[in-house]
C-alpha cells in the first residue's frame, strides 16, 4: 500500500489532488481511498488531504500517520510539521520556484522533488491569479516521482472530467519536475502516532485556562488591524483644536475634560463658541447624513460650564513683548505663559481684547464672557499694559528690551468706498460704529441706514443699528447671500430681526438731488445691479455690472463694512510681513508678526492658531525643543496604522448610523432681541448634541465590532481593542460592521 499526505491551503485543490491520484490508480485496478481532514476551513487555511492505494483491499480507516510521500501545494507551508511520520526514503514534492537543492537542505533525510506548479497553473489559467489551482499540475509531478505512467494520470483526469489547461498543466509539470536525492538518507522518522491523550482543557476551568477549541487563527489569510484617520473637523480648525477629542469628552459628559482638551490649543473656547464661523461644521461628515454636529455651541458649553484650573508652570528667564491684545496677541501670550515665559502685552486702546472688545456687539459676545477668558490668561502671569500704542520707534525699543517681540496689531486699515461723501458724517466705518455703540455713543433714532458689505461686521453693524433706533436697515452686497463671508446663522438672524438684504447690488454714488431734501438729511444712494461672472482668484464668482440697471435707495446714513487691511506703518519700509518670518533680523532680538496682520485670515480662530504657532516657534528658537507640528493638536491613539489623510463621508459606512436632527440651542425671540443688547443665544441645555459626533476615522469605543465578532475573539481591554489572533479566522465582519472605518484587513 502507498500512502500520500498532501499539505495545501483551502482553495488550491488538495483534496481533489488526492482524488486525481486515487482515480488514476483505481482505473488500473487498485483499491483506493482519498479524503481530506475536514474542519471548518475556509479559503486559504492550511488543509491536509490523504490518498491511499493498494492492489489489495484497504482496511485502514484512519488518517495517514506514517506517509510514504508528502506533497506540499504551497511553499509557505514548508516547515518541520510537514515531515512528521514520513517514512525513510519517501519523497517530498514541493510546489516552489526554488531549486531542488534549496529545498533539499531543509529536508536532508528525504528525496526531494520541486516543480513551479503555480507558474504552470497561471500559464494555463487554472483558478484565479490570486488563488491559482495547482492540483492538476502536481498530479503530473506525482506521476513522475512515483513512476505512475503519465497516461494513467491523464486517464484519471479524463475520467473525472478534467480537460484543456489541466491536461497541459499535468504534462508540463511531469516534464518540469526537478529531483534531488536525500543528503543523509538514514534517519529515524519523526514519530507521528498519537500517544495517549492528556486531559483537554475543561469548560469549567474559567477564563484563566486555555480554551478547549481549535486554534483557528492559523486558517486566516488576513487579519483585522486598528487604524486611525484625521477627522475633517480637526484638520480644518484654524485654531488647531482637537475638535473630535473634546466632543468625545462631552459625549461622556466629561465637561471639565472637554475644556481641558480645548485649553491645550485655545484660550478662548467661550468666545469661539459664540463667534467662530466654524469651518469644522462646514466640513462635518455628519451633514451627509442629516445635519452637521453643532460644534460651535458645544465649544461654548465646554467653555462656559467646564472648570479647569491651569497650573502656573515653572518660570523661564526669557521675556517676550506682544504688541496688540486681540485674539492673536493674547493667544500667543497665553501659550508663551504656559511655557513659563514672562509676557507683557501692549495695547493701544484703554481696554484689553482688540476687536473682540470693540468690534463684536454684546448681543453676540457679552463683555463679561470676554473678561472671564482674558482673566484666565492674566492669571497665568501675562502682564497687560493698556493705552500704550507702539510706533516704529517703540517697536525697536521693545526689540532691545525683550528676548522676542510679537506684533499682533491685526487689520486696522479700513477700506473705503468713494461715494462722493468722504468726510461727511453721513458715512461711518462699521468698526468705528460698533465701537461707538459699545460705549453708548451712537444713536440712529428714526434713521434709514444702508450697510455696505457682506461680512460679520456688516451684519453686526446692521443689527446694532436696529438696536440704536434705526427705523429701517438695508444691507447691500455685490454678490449673493451664498457668497457672503458672514456666518450663515448671523445672516439668518439679521433677516429675522428685520434687516433687508439686497443681493447683487453695488453702490455707485450718493445722488445730488437727494440732498435737496435739506433738513431731513435724506439722500439717494445710487446703485447698480450685478450678476455673477467667472470665478476670481479667491474662487468666488466675480460680480459684473448689469448695464442700465441703476436704481436709488433712500438713506440718511451709510455704514461701510468693506473689510480691513494691515497697518504696516509700525514696521521699517519694505519689511515682508508674514507668519514665521523674522521681521527685524538685524536687530538684537527677533520680531515676529502674528494673527491677521501676518495671515490676513480674518477670523478669531485663525488668529488663535497663528498666536499658538508663534509661541511654539519662539519656544523652539529659545530652547531648540520641537513641541508639536504646530498645526494641529493631533492625538494619536495606540493603533496599528496611522493614516495622515482626512477621512471623508464616502469612507464611512453611513447606513450604519441612525439619523437624528441637530440641536440649535435656544435663542431669544426676534422681537425680544431688539430691546437692548442682551445675548440672543442661551446655549445648549446639555451635552447630548456631542453624542451625534460620528467619530470619523477614530475609535470611540462603541464596541459594535466586539458585539458582532462571531468568534468572540475581539475584546476591549481598557481603551484597547484586542484581537485574539490565535482564534481569529479573519472573516472581516468587524471591518464591515465598523461604521467609522477604524478596523481594516491586513493581508498576511
Amino acid at each position, binding site marked *: 500500500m502507498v500512502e500520500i499526505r498532501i499539505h495545501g491551503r483551502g482553495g488550491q485543490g488538495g483534496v481533489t489532488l488526492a482524488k486525481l491520484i486515487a482515480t488514476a490508480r483505481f482505473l488500473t485496478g487498485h483499491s483506493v481511498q482519498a479524503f481530506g481532514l475536514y474542519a471548518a476551513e475556509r479559503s486559504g487555511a492550511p488543509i491536509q488531504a490523504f490518498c491511499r492505494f493498494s492492489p489489495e483491499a484497504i482496511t485502514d480507516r484512519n*488518517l495517514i500517520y506514517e506517509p510514504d510521500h508528502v506533497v506540499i501545494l504551497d511553499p509557505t507551508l514548508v516547515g518541520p510539521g510537514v515531515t512528521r511520520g514520513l517514512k525513510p526514503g519517501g519523497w517530498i514534492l514541493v510546489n516552489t520556484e526554488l531549486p531542488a537543492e534549496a529545498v533539499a537542505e531543509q529536508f536532508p533525510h528525504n528525496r526531494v522533488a520541486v516543480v513551479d506548479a503555480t507558474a504552470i497553473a497561471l500559464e494555463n489559467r487554472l483558478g484565479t491569479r490570486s488563488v491559482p489551482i495547482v492540483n492538476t499540475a502536481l498530479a503530473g509531478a506525482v506521476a513522475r516521482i512515483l513512476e505512475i505512467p503519465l497516461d494513467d494520470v491523464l486517464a484519471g483526469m479524463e475520467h473525472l472530467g478534467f480537460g484543456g489547461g489541466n491536461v497541459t498543466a499535468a504534462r508540463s509539470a511531469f516534464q518540469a519536475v526537478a529531483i534531488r536525492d536525500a543528503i543523509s538518507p538514514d534517519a529515524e522518522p519523526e514519530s507521528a502516532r*498519537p500517544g495517549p491523550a492528556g486531559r483537554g482543557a475543561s469548560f469549567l476551568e474559567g477564563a484563566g485556562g486555555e480554551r478547549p477549541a481549535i486554534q483557528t487563527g492559523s486558517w486566516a489569510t488576513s487579519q483585522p488591524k486598528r487604524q486611525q484617520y484625521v477627522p475633517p473637523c480637526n484638520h480644518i480648525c484654524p485654531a488647531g483644536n482637537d475638535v473630535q477629542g473634546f466632543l468625545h469628552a462631552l459625549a461622556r459628559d466629561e465637561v471639565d475634560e472637554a475644556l481641558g482638551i480645548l485649553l491645550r490649543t485655545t484660550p478662548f473656547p467661550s468666545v469661539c463658541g459664540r463667534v467662530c464661523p466654524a469651518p469644522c461644521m462646514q466640513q462635518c461628515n455628519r451633514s451627509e447624513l442629516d445635519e452637521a454636529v453643532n460644534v460651535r455651541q458645544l465649544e461654548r458649553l465646554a467653555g462656559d460650564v467646564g472648570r479647569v484650573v491651569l497650573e502656573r508652570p515653572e518660570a523661564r528667564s526669557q521675556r517676550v513683548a506682544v504688541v496688540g491684545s486681540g485674539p492673536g496677541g493674547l493667544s500667543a501670550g497665553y501659550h508663551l505663559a504656559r511655557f513659563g515665559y514672562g509676557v507683557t502685552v501692549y495695547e493701544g486702546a484703554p481696554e484689553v481684547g482688540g476687536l473682540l472688545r470693540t468690534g463684536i456687539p454684546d448681543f453676540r459676545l457679552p463683555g463679561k464672557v470676554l473678561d472671564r477668558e482674558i482673566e484666565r490668561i492674566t492669571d497665568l502671569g501675562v502682564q497687560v499694559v493698556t493705552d500704550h500704542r507702539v510706533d516704529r520707534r517703540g517697536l525697536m525699543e521693545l526689540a532691545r528690551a525683550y528676548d522676542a517681540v510679537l506684533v499682533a496689531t491685526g487689520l486696522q486699515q479700513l477700506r473705503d468706498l468713494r461715494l462722493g461723501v468722504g468726510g461727511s458724517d453721513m458715512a461711518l466705518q462699521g468698526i468705528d460704529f460698533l465701537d461707538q455703540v459699545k460705549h453708548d455713543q451712537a444713536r440712529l433714532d428714526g434713521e434709514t441706514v444702508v450697510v455696505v458689505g457682506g461680512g460679520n461686521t456688516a451684519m453686526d453693524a446692521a443689527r446694532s443699528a436696529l438696536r440704536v433706533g434705526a427705523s429701517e436697515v438695508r444691507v447691500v452686497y455685490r454678490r449673493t447671500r451664498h457668497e457672503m463671508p458672514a456666518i450663515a446663522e448671523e445672516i439668518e438672524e439679521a433677516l429675522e430681526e428685520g434687516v433687508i438684504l439686497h443681493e447683487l447690488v453695488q453702490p455707485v454714488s450718493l445722488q445730488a438731488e437727494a440732498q435737496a431734501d435739506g433738513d431731513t438729511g435724506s439722500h439717494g444712494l445710487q446703485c447698480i445691479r450685478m450678476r455673477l461672472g467667472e470665478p476670481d482668484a479667491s474662487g468666488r464668482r466675480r460680480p459684473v455690472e448689469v448695464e442700465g440697471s441703476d436704481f436709488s435707495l433712500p438713506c440718511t446714513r451709510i455704514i461701510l463694512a468693506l473689510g480691513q487691511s494691515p497697518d504696516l506703518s509700525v514696521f521699517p519700509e519694505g519689511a515682508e510681513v508674514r507668519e514665521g518670518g523674522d521681521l527685524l533680523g538685524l536687530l538684537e532680538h527677533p520680531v515676529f508678526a502674528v494673527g491677521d496682520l501676518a495671515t490676513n485670515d480674518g477670523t478669531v480662530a485663525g488668529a488663535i492658531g497663528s498666536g499658538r504657532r508663534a509661541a511654539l516657534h519662539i519656544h523652539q528658537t529659545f530652547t531648540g525643543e520641537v513641541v508639536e507640528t504646530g498645526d494641529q493638536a493631533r492625538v494619536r491613539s495606540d493603533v496599528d496604522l496611522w493614516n495622515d489623510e482626512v477621512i471623508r463621508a464616502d469612507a464611512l459606512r453611513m447606513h450604519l448610523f441612525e439619523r437624528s436632527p441637530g440641536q440649535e440651542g435656544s435663542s431669544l425671540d426676534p422681537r425680544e432681541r431688539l430691546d437692548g443688547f442682551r445675548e440672543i443665544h442661551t446655549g445648549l441645555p446639555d451635552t447630548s448634541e456631542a453624542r451625534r459626533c460620528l467619530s470619523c476615522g477614530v475609535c470611540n469605543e462603541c464596541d459594535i465590532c466586539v458585539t458582532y465578532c462571531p468568534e468572540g475573539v475581539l475584546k476591549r481591554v481598557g481603551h484597547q481593542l484586542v484581537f485574539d489572533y490565535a482564534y481569529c479566522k479573519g472573516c472581516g465582519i468587524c471591518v464591515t460592521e465598523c461604521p467609522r472605518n477604524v478596523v481594516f484587513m491586513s493581508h498576511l
Partner: protein
Amino acid sequence: MPREIVTGNHAAGLALSMAGEANRFARGTAAGIYPITPQTEIVERVAAFPFSKGRVVPVESEHSAMGVTIGASLSGARAFTASSSNGLAYMVENIMVAGFYRLPVVMVAVNRTLGPPWNIWADQGDTLMLRDFPWIQLYAQDNQQVADLTLLAFRLAEDPRVLLPVLVCMDAFIVSHTQMETELPTQEQVDRYLPPLDLPHRMRSDDPKTLGGLVWPDATVSLRKEIHEAFDRVPMVFEECRQEFRDVFGRSPAGAVEAYHTKNAETVLVATATIATTALEVVRSRRAAGERVGLLILRMLRPFPIDQLLEACASASRIGVLDRDYAAGIGGVWAHEIRAALQGTRDDLLVQGYLTGIGGGDVTAERIDEVLVDLGQRELPGPPVWVGLEDPAPVPAAPPPKAPLVPPVPSGVEATP
C-alpha cells in the same frame, strides 16, 4: 453495474435519488431537505437529480424537512431525507411521528458528534439517541454498504409485513467524505429491485380520513403492540430483502450481523461502522498468532439481533464492546444493549464497555490492542473504559455548607416560639 470512485455521501445521494425515481410509475417521490455538515452533499445531490415524477422541497429546518417527508409519504410517494447530529436532535418530534404513522420513510444519517463543544467528526451519539423510536436502524461500514443498505432500506421499509421507517447511518468524513471504489447501481436494476410503492394507509381524496387523532388507551396499546410485532418480523424480511438484492445486483449486501473467527473464540470484540474494519485487522493478526479472538460486527441496532449475538458468543467467556458514542451516566449504548440482551441467558459472560474514538478521534490498531490487553486481564466487568485518555478529570470541590434560609423577623415583633 458501473464501478466508480465516489464518497459515501455521493453513494447515499445517488441511492436515495434512484430509489425515488423508481417510483415514477406510481405516486412518484418527494423529499424535504435541509443542509447540515457533513450530510449536505447528500441533499445537494438529491436536489440536482432530474426526477421524472416528484419534488424535492428545500425547507427552513430539519423539523420541517421531516414534516414534508411525512406528508409526501402519507400521499403515497416514496419519501426520504437526510440529516446529522444536532439537526437530528431538532428533527426529533417528527422522526417519532413518521415511525408511529408506520410510514416507509428512509433517512440517511451521517453520524456526527452532538455539540457542544462544536465538533463535526464521527460519533454515533446522534442516531443512538433515537433508539427508542419505531425506526429500524442500520449502520454502514463503507461506501459500498451505504449504497446497498440505502436501497435495501426502501425494500425493507415498504414490505407490508414491516411498514416502518429505516435509518441508514455512516461515520462522518471517514465514510461520508472519503472517495473509495464503489459498485453503483443502474436505474434499471433499482427499478427491478424496488417495485412501485402501494402504501395501504395512504391519504386519498376519494376517501378522506384522519390519521393519528385522539384515541383511548386500549387503541394505543394495540397500535404499540403492532409495531412490536412488526419489529419481530424484520430479521426475516431483512434476509429476504438481501436475497432479492443478490438476485438483482449480483452481489450480497452486508448483513445485519457479521461474525469473524467467533467459532471457539474465548474473547469476542464487538464493533460497528468503520471501527469494525480496523478491529478486523487486529483480530486477524491475533488469530494468526494463535489467540482465540473473534469479532462481531453489528449493523442493526433496531431490532437488536439477539439471536446472532448469542450464536457468535457461544464459546466466549468475555466480550469487549467498542462504542463510538457516549450515553450520559451510562457509557456506551452498544455495550448497554448487549448487556441487556444477554441478561438471564448468558450471565456468565463478562461484558466490558470501551469508549473509543469519541468525538471522531481515530481508533487505530494500537488502541484496539490496548482494549484487548485490558480485556484479557479482567476478572470482573467495570465501569466504561475511556480508551486513550489517561488523566482523570479533577474532582470539583463540594460546595460549602449554606446557612439555612430563615425569613427575617420584622423589627419590633417578637418571634413566636
